[in-house]
Each structure stands twice: as C-alpha cells, then as structure tokens.
C-alpha cells in the first residue's frame, strides 16, 4: 500500500506501508503541526489493534506518541516528522524523527516526562529521534 502526495505540498501527508521494505512496519510522514497528532493516534489505534494490544495499552501508546509529537513541534514546528511504527510479538514501538534526519532540539517539560515514564516501558530522547516502546502484557497477547 502506498499513498503519497507531492512532498512539497503544504500540509500533505505520506503514508507508506511496504511489508518487505519496512519489516512489518509502517512509516507515516506528517507536518509538525498539532492538528496532525490525531492522525498519528488513529494510526496507533489501528496498528495496535492489529497486533493484539489491549485498549488500555493502545490508549497509553497514543498518549505517549502525542506527547512526543508535541515535543518535536515546540522546536521544529513547520517541518515534517516521520513516525516509524514497528511491532514484534511482544512489543510495539515508534521512532519519531524529522523527515530531514536533522538533529532534534527538544526540551521536554516535567509533566510530559512524567506521562512518558508512566505509560510506556521505555523511551529515549536522542539526538535525532524520540523512541517509545510499549510491551504487551501477557493477558492482552492471550486475547484476555
């Protein structure tokens, strides 16, 4: 599946899903504008449901991704972000970076960090990407 609009178009969104190239992952490219956070949450919900995560776990991941997206907007609003979703049998992760690959200028506040600490199993705010990982509980993997 591939949906691509011209990259220079203002407000354009690219969604690329190529299971061979991305190893069962999905890349979503969106403008760094708050109104596109809901689109990332929609992708998260779909991705999480397909991989057996519980509703609560998906809600946690949506919250974490929204916080990370907001961190990028503060320092890089007007640019475009790439959210690379990946899943294994036991965990879901997303790597959020600038589409350009440039270094990040991120200064998260304590409230956002408190939320990240509580809702994902690990997070890393690196030089070029913010990475979030949520492990599925045994119950959700069993469909309970």
């Amino acid at each position: 599946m591939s949906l691509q609009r011209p990259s220079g178009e203002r407000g354009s969104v690219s969604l690329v899903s190529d299971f061979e190239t991305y190893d069962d992952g999905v890349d979503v490219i969106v403008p760094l504008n708050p109104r596109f956070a809901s689109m990332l949450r929609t992708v998260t919900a779909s991705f999480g449901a397909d991989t057996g995560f519980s509703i609560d776990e998906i809600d946690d991941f949506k919250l974490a991704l929204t916080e990370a997206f907001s961190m990028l907007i503060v320092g890089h609003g007007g640019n475009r972000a790439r959210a690379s979703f990946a899943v294994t049998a036991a965990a879901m992760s997303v790597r959020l970076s600038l589409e350009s690959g440039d270094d990040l200028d991120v200064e998260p506040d304590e409230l956002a960090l408190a939320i990240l600490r509580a809702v994902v199993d690990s997070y890393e705010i690196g030089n070029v990407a913010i990475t979030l990982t949520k492990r599925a509980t045994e119950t959700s993997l069993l469909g309970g």
Partner: protein
Amino acid sequence: MSEQGAHLSVVATADGWTVEGEIDAHSADSLAKALSQLPNVPKIVADFAGVTFMDSSGLRVLVDAAMQATDAGKTFAIANPQVAIRRVVEISGLSGLLHFID
C-alpha cells in the same frame, strides 16, 4: 456560549461546561478560552463524559481553571471522566488539584 474545534466541543451549562472530543495541543486553546470565564456558581463542574483523549496540554488548561476557581472561592470538579482521562490525571500526580465526581 460554546467553543468548537476540529475535534472538540465545549458547551456552557448552568454550572460549568459539557466537553466532548479530544483534548490535545490542537484543541487545548479552545478549551482554555471556554474555561476562562467561570460560571457564577460555588461548585463548577466540567462534564467530561464525552472526552475520549487528553494529553498534558489539556491537563494544564484544567489546572489553570481549577486554580482560578480556588482563587475565586469556588470548587472545580471533572464529572464522569472516562478511564483514559482519569488515568492521565492520576499518573501526572495532579489528583490533588483535579477532583472527579461520578
């Protein structure tokens, strides 16, 4: 009076507001604008039954409203929150400021 964003609706009631939709950085300004005018009642209630998502930007708006209410000698409560909303308040350590009623 009501405020409406792309995915948020805030409608004034006799004792506060009915809020529906998602509260994030995109919609928090609409919520802040609506909540900036406190109703003239001692117990202010924001009905959150229809709120399905809230991040830290929404928390900041609610904390501001709660503190404004306290300064005015009023109480501020969030009514009928969904599990996800209750959870984000609790994990943020703001349960002491933001009170729930069911």
